[in-house]
């Protein structure tokens, strides 16, 4: 295995473009090293992106949007004094990943590019409308987060391409987001279902919404029927029931020891309702 620690994304991209065999990028390594250890993937080329300038920065831009460096850890996101006030759902989703030790290393980008359908930060990012900058041999392109994973363990990134930054939109007025997952224990487990909700209100009425589900299909889903079920409503009982039905209808889950198809389908609806209530309360400025 060749280990490289390039000083720029252009250099990282060129290294990956010219590499033969299996290439991995190294952010926090909490997936890469586990896969090496378990002999699932032993890269021929490992490109550590942590020595590139700015990769640890959390920046609030003039328009209120956020740029998150690709090596920013979960712990750094939770410790940031303002990010969690704008985007509590995104920060809490990332914070659910692993233990204190894993939080000291794990990144949003790694969670996204590992492309697990159960990745906790991804539904929260999809709901929030996060986009990424992809740097490759032909320059940069902007891609919505939901277009990165294509199947379990697979992404839409071409050879030589890597993510060079994440962008969270400006929170704006009267908005709120939330992420909830169901796991059989209270810590250190993989989501059986995850649900991210992000919405905006005008008075009591929801004007914009994005709802995302994790662990119920081969990739994280953006469920437009869920958004439609609550837009224009005051999140009354009827709207919540319609939301739950749309969430359950979107599920195409697997059966495994953590949850049956029936269980995951039902829990998706339950979590969507709970997450929507939290996001709604947050949009109203209530503590939730």
């Amino acid at each position: 295995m060749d280990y490289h620690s390039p000083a720029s994304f252009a250099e990282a991209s060129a290294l990956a473009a010219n590499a033969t065999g299996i290439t991995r990028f190294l952010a926090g390594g909490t997936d890469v090293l586990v896969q090496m250890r378990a002999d699932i993937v032993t890269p021929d080329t490992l490109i550590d992106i942590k020595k590139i300038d700015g990769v640890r920065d959390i920046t609030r831009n003039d328009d209120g949007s956020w740029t998150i460096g690709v090596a920013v850890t979960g712990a750094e996101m939770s410790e940031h004094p303002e990010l969690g006030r704008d985007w509590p759902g995104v920060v809490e989703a990332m914070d659910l990943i692993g233990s204190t030790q894993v939080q000291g290393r794990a990144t949003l980008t790694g969670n996204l590019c590992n492309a697990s359908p159960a990745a906790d930060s991804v539904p929260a990012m999809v709901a929030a409308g996060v986009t990424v900058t992809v740097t490759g041999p032909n320059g940069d392109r902007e891609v919505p987060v939901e277009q990165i994973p294509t199947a379990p363990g697979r992404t839409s990134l071409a050879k030589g391409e890597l993510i060079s930054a994440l962008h969270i939109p400006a929170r704006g007025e009267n908005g709120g987001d939330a992420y909830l997952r169901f796991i059989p224990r209270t810590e250190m487990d993989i989501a059986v279902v995850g649900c991210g909700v992000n919405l905006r209100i005008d008075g009591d009425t929801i004007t914009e919404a994005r709802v995302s589900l994790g662990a119920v299909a081969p990739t994280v889903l953006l469920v437009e029927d869920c958004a439609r079920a609550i837009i224009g409503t005051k999140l009354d009982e009827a709207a919540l029931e319609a939301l739950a039905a749309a969430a359950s209808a979107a599920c195409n889950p697997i059966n495994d020891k953590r949850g049956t198809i029936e269980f995951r389908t039902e829990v998706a609806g339950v979590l969507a309702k709970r997450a929507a209530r939290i996001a709604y309360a947050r949009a109203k400025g209530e503590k939730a």
Partner: protein
Amino acid sequence: MSKIHVTTTVNGDEVDFLCDPRETLLDCLRDRLNLTGAKEGCGTGDCGACSVTLDGRLVCSCLVLGVEAEGKEIGTVEGIADGDVLHPLQKKFIEYAALQCGVCTPGILVAAKALLEKNPDPTEEEVRYWLAGNLCRCTGYDKIIRAVMDTAAELREAV
């Protein structure tokens, strides 16, 4: 396979070693630097027996490559005591019998020390969540939690 030369700081002392790029920091600490305090329980980030600090941040050394230690500051259980004088956490672990086989103990001491530096007055719940990534197959955790809580109380009185 050519080996890579790594210079790093462990418990305040500059050290260097040669390692294969696939070797974990845990293997480098144990096999190259003879610091066998950090243990391997699982090798996959689940048990916390390999806990160390990397530039002050608690991590699993089994999930860090040795080459990533270049230019960093590592803290291990060997650096917790001050010479022959045990750290208050170590004394309380003995007093409370918060260990049996001791395999989890170095990782728990490193993790608990990192917690108390960040939060000198944690609730029991906070201690339990902070240590959720440190598994112990022997004690049932209760004595560990009590030892950490009592150390925190003692350290608060000392200042």
